[in-house]
């Protein structure tokens, strides 16, 4: 028997406020992070993600404060990503009360950082996020992007996921550039390829727009289902989603 499938609403954050980028650029303000986090917990969220897209140093301090207040307000595990450039930054976020940190660009540039974090905080505390886009010239058909999706690396996304998995991380979180915010469904081939290739839990991210999309991601091998806009704008409610998944035989809380 496996663990239950987790529903993970994601709060995209800038300067201490929740926003939601569509296709990584268009941004809409959608409220106070702590209130959102509390509301999601009340609705039945199994985990939460806070993704900080602030680029400034002042923003970082604001984010730590948000992490502290969120930790105080929620009693489910939450992951914090964005701006974690080294082990010390990860430690600050965990000490502020986060359960897991998510790293992306910095980890790609310096993979040793992943091993150091796993050693220091344990596998379960480390998530590696991988922004991907289709590239038919690579073996898996997917390429790793960094810097918030702006920089193509030339690296094969599934190969990178396998390498990351070798460090013993808890979760791998591929986000498809094409699908993110578009509500046309998760990028299933990349979820399937990674779920087959790695031991880490695969988090489906980017593109959920309807109930069916979540079910498809479970079938593709994801065990944590992340989404932002659909939950944010109440296109899909968490209780409704859980009922829907349960009816289809998916084990949810």
């Amino acid at each position, binding site marked *: *028997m*496996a*663990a*239950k*499938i*987790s529903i993970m609403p994601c709060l995209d954050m800038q300067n201490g406020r929740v926003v939601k980028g569509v296709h990584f650029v268009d941004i809409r303000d959608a409220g106070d992070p702590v209130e959102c986090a509390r509301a999601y*917990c009340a609705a039945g969220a*199994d985990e939460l993600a806070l993704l900080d897209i602030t680029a400034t140093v002042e923003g970082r301090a604001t984010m730590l404060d948000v992490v502290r207040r969120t*930790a*105080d307000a929620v*009693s*489910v*595990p939450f992951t914090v990503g964005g701006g974690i450039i080294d082990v010390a930054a990860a430690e600050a976020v*965990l*000490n*502020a*009360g986060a*359960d897991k940190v998510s790293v992306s660009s910095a980890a790609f540039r310096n993979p040793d950082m992943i091993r150091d974090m796993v050693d220091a*905080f*344990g*596998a*379960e*505390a480390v998530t590696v996020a991988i922004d991907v886009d289709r590239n038919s010239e690579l073996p898996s058909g997917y390429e790793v992007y960094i810097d918030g999706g702006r920089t193509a690396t030339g690296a094969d996304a599934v190969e990178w996921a396998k390498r990351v998995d070798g460090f013993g991380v*808890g*979760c791998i979180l591929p986000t498809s550039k094409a699908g993110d915010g578009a509500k046309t469904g998760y990028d299933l081939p990349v979820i399937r390829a990674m779920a087959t290739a790695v*031991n*880490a*839990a695969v988090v489906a991210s980017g593109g959920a727009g309807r109930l069916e999309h979540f079910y498809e991601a479970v079938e593709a091998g994801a*065990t*944590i289902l992340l989404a932002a806009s659909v939950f944010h704008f109440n296109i899909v409610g968490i209780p409704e989603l859980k009922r829907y998944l349960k009816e289809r035989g998916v084990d949810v*809380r």
Partner: protein
Amino acid sequence: MPEFERLRWWDTLREHVVIAIVDYRAGNLTSVRLALEHLGLPARVTHEPGEIAAAERVIFPGVGAAGSAMNNLAELGLTDVLRDVVERGTPFLGICLGAQVIFEHSEEDGGVDCLSIVPGKVRKFTPSDPLCKIPHMGWNTIDLRGTHPLFEGIENESEFYFVHSYYPAPSDPSYILAETEYAGARFASVLAKDNLAATQFHPERSGRIGLRLLENFSTWDGSC
């Protein structure tokens, strides 16, 4: 200072350490402390043997590996005080790694001798199903074998949040209060005997039900 006044002073100090959260550098204790604060329960994160010995209740949390946990406990001089508080009847709650190092032995780190408070050992999951990833990370149900003050108001088959790669295997079945199935193993997810209780899951990360368990612990007198 006259003897009786010193005793009174000592009593007021004792009252402050209502719940001691044992800090032995085994992972992050922030969420445990915040959960108790959230419930309005005064708790103190401490590695002082005296404070732990004097506390009304002791929470023994922890994440990470058994080997370094045992080293840290030895270095901080905490192994005896932990055995003593359990022996003396102090309500005691082990969480996650804290529910493992109370055993005699763990298979982790090539084999580690532990605190020997609970007979039995800690085993590694050996899944045959590739869907059962290690660590066991996520929500899972518990199957209660009986009633216990800690589970007052908590239904059987409730769900809790787990993160672990090893599981408790007590040799004395009377310690098993609840079981959970994962990766082909049916393991003891809650241990309870007399004033000792231990959960393999994280009550501080298990939503409202987990908070209820911590609240129950705060009023538990240590009897079953």
